[in-house]
């Protein structure tokens, strides 16, 4: 584990469970230890690191969001876990079984990013194939395929060939294929990407349903509001390195709270000297709003507004979104990277 990546400001150490540092391995659905992947360029021989010493622990039954910008190493991690890539270094276990063993994939369901399907098959045939490959016997695969096709809203035309499916229908079919053998661990790579709001809601509902069932879910996503709704914890990966793991509450709660105060038009007085620098003023035709960056100064601010004769209409606390925190983390890591480069130069 790259302890240097962990800031000393009370953030949990990357990858470790924040409230159970010595969690027994059998209680973990996914565990990686120093998992790394490098690629050698065919012509130049240059080595590119896709994933660097990943130490991640995902508890049984939890939903973990895996965040990072494009090229950060999210898909690489998920492909390593599902056997599509071979690790350069390190180990990983799924439900306690090393990922090198084919049987480690017996209890997982995987939805790749932008899944591709056999266009010559129909929905029923595809799900039957998926079920059989996941270990279901012929008749059971048939029954599960029929059931899941209906559950994801594709049951009315089970014989429709996949080349006639829309993107949303394919995504739902992919989810059904990942779920029909009732896996203990669900690994989803950008499951909401490219979906309309209805499709996103459907996928969200399916994930929530799986959470209720006790399924462990690890999913990568760019759509942070969905992550905020669904996840128990989030892991943030940047440049192939895990930089943060925390509950959504910890991430969001640790940020400074801002407060927006809307009131009647306030003459352009300067705020009291103590408030200068902590407040931003915005004048509109019929109202003035103030954004107070430090909520501990709210009383002081309200007292000043009353003194200058303003009528306060609304006081709204503004919590930083996961998206803002993610961007801030990325910017900080970027700045740290540049600082490191300058130091090494």
């Amino acid at each position, binding site marked *: 584990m790259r302890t240097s990546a962990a800031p000393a400001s009370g953030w949990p150490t990357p990858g470790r469970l924040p409230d159970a540092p010595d969690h027994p391995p059998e209680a973990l659905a996914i565990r990686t230890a120093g998992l790394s992947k490098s690629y050698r360029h065919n012509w130049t021989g240059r080595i590119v690191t896709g994933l660097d010493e990943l130490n991640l622990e995902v508890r049984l039954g939890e939903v973990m969001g895996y965040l990072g910008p494009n090229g950060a190493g999210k898909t690489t991690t998920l492909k390593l876990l599902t056997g599509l890539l071979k690790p350069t270094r390190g180990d990983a276990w799924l439900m306690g079984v090393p990922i090198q063993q084919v049987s480690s994939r017996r209890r997982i369901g995987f939805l790749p990013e932008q899944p*591709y399907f056999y266009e010559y098959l129909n929905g029923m045939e595809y799900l039957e194939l998926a079920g059989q*490959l996941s270990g279901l016997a012929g008749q059971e695969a048939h029954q599960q395929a029929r059931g899941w096709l209906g559950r994801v809203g594709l049951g009315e035309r089970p014989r429709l060939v996949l080349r006639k499916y829309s993107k949303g229908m394919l995504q739902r079919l992919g989810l059904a294929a990942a779920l029909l053998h009732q896996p203990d661990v669900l690994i989803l790579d950008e499951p909401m990407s490219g979906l309309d709001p209805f499709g996103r809601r459907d996928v969200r509902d399916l994930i929530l349903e799986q959470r209720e069932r006790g399924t462990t879910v690890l999913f990568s996503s760019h759509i942070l509001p969905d992550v905020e709704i669904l996840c128990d914890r989030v892991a943030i990966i940047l440049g192939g390195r895990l930089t943060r793991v925390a509950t959504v509450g910890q991430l969001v709660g640790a940020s400074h709270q801002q407060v927006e105060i809307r009131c009647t038009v306030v003459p352009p007085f300067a705020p009291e000297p103590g408030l200068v620098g902590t407040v931003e003023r915005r004048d509109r035709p019929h109202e003035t709003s103030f954004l107070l960056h430090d909520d501990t100064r709210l009383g002081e601010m309200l007292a000043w507004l009353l003194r200058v004769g303003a009528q306060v209409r609304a006081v709204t606390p503004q919590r930083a979104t996961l998206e803002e925190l993610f961007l801030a983390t990325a910017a900080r890591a970027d700045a740290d990277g540049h600082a490191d480069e300058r130091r090494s130069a």
Partner: protein
Amino acid sequence: MKAAAIARNTFREATRDRALTGVLVAGVALILATQALGALALGEESRLTVDLGLSAISGFGLLVIVLVGTSLVAKEIERRTIFNLLSRPIGRPAYLLGKWLGLSSALWVVVAVLGLVVWLMLEVRGHGGYGPAVAEAAYLAGLELTVVTGLAVLFSALSTPVLSTLYTVGFYCAGQWSWDLRDFAERAPGALGVTLRVAADLVPNLPIFNMRALAAHGQVTTPFHLGLATLYALVYCGCVLALAAAAFESRDFK
């Protein structure tokens, strides 16, 4: 069990591909066309039908391998459909075995259909006695195509469809000339001779599957020949698939 599921899917893929239908239609049309040439054959109509019919089975079978087989695995990697398969509890050797079994089954259907048409043509013309010879020759042609399918799976798992086609056709041609290669090796001096002998051992011994000349005269081969050819096909395919599995095992799917 899982290899069987992959095989069933590959069979479905091949049989729903228009290429296979086109090849079958062309093959049947060619065999029917030989009947028009009967008048020019000066009493050798049955021989012409058998010779051209069996050649059509081999030729069109090879065409199916080129059109479908050489991109069998590469296409799955390119289109990323392989992600949905190999992320499940199925070993890569089982996956390759399933692909080979599936396409081989589709080719056996081509062999059976075209063989049946040849036999029907002979029956209609009153040459029913050719039946056993045609059946044996078609069986050996099927074995030959099964061996070439193994090579196509190997090359398809390791390279692009274009290169895979070149390698497969190259091995097919070299395999047809493997006896000549062995003769050259006997006569060639030193290192060249050794190299040619190794090459002759590596390429498939395809002449063992060719009994067209015998069948054209209505003659059957020995059970020993049939048994030996079957054993050789199984062993050669086993070796080729083992090699493919070993190379495929470490492959990354980005």
